């Protein structure tokens, strides 16, 4: 397996996640699509680490940081979703317009 295969898979996965972020109404579904995009980035980092600098592990360390930041993002995002659901009785991202004008 060459680097290009992993990069192509990562590009496809990123585009699928992008499509989900744009077209979903449900806020939790948007967060799940974001997780797909994070995973695409991580595949990129680990694949570059494997094929370009196999003995230095820098890509893997960055992947760890990305995973941790994604976990923090999911925590805060889902807390906001639950708060929105409590106040609006809905988690439709199109109807939550408090900070739009």
């Amino acid at each position: 397996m060459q680097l290009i295969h992993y990069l192509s898979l990562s590009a496809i996965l990123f585009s699928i996640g992008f499509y989900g972020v744009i077209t979903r109404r449900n806020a939790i579904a948007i967060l799940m699509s974001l997780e797909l995009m994070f995973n695409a980035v991580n595949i990129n980092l680990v694949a570059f680490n494997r094929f370009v600098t196999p003995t230095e592990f820098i890509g893997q360390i960055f992947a760890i940081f990305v995973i941790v930041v994604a976990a923090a993002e999911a925590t805060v995002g889902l807390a906001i979703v639950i708060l929105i659901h409590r106040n609006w009785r809905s988690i439709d991202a199109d109807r939550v317009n408090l900070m739009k004008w």
Partner: protein
Amino acid sequence: MTETIVFYLFSFIIIVSALAVVTLRNIFHCALFLILCLFCVAGLYVLLYADFIAVIQVLLYVGAVSILIIFAIMLTARLAGRQVVMQNEQTFIGAFLALILMGGILWSLTGTFIRQSAEVPPPKSLATIGRLLMTDYVLPFELVSVLLLAALIGAIVIARREGT
């Protein structure tokens, strides 16, 4: 040869389940397909000699983040189940933009030369990663732990009920 077969198998499952995550109507099924997708990504990490990242992926994504998402779906399920329309009216323009993005990345990949190394990765990565995290990357490591603490407190403050 085996590596190729395993790679294409995992890639197929990843792409199909990712498409299911972004297109299915029942959000609970979406969450289950997300777990399958994340698990297969962990398999890809094993193929890439990143054993520690694979374990972290299973623990943090398949274990923690998925459970968190399922909890959030359960807490909002009464309305999420009734909500039939899951896509907004941007489906076509969204698909168009996503295809442009994918085509652009793939097209730029074909024209890029990346100098690859022929070295064989060492069999165990955990000791080296731990040493690097404690020496060269100790500042981002500590920053990320502070970030996690802030996210923890922030999530509790945001999600708790008023007056309790």
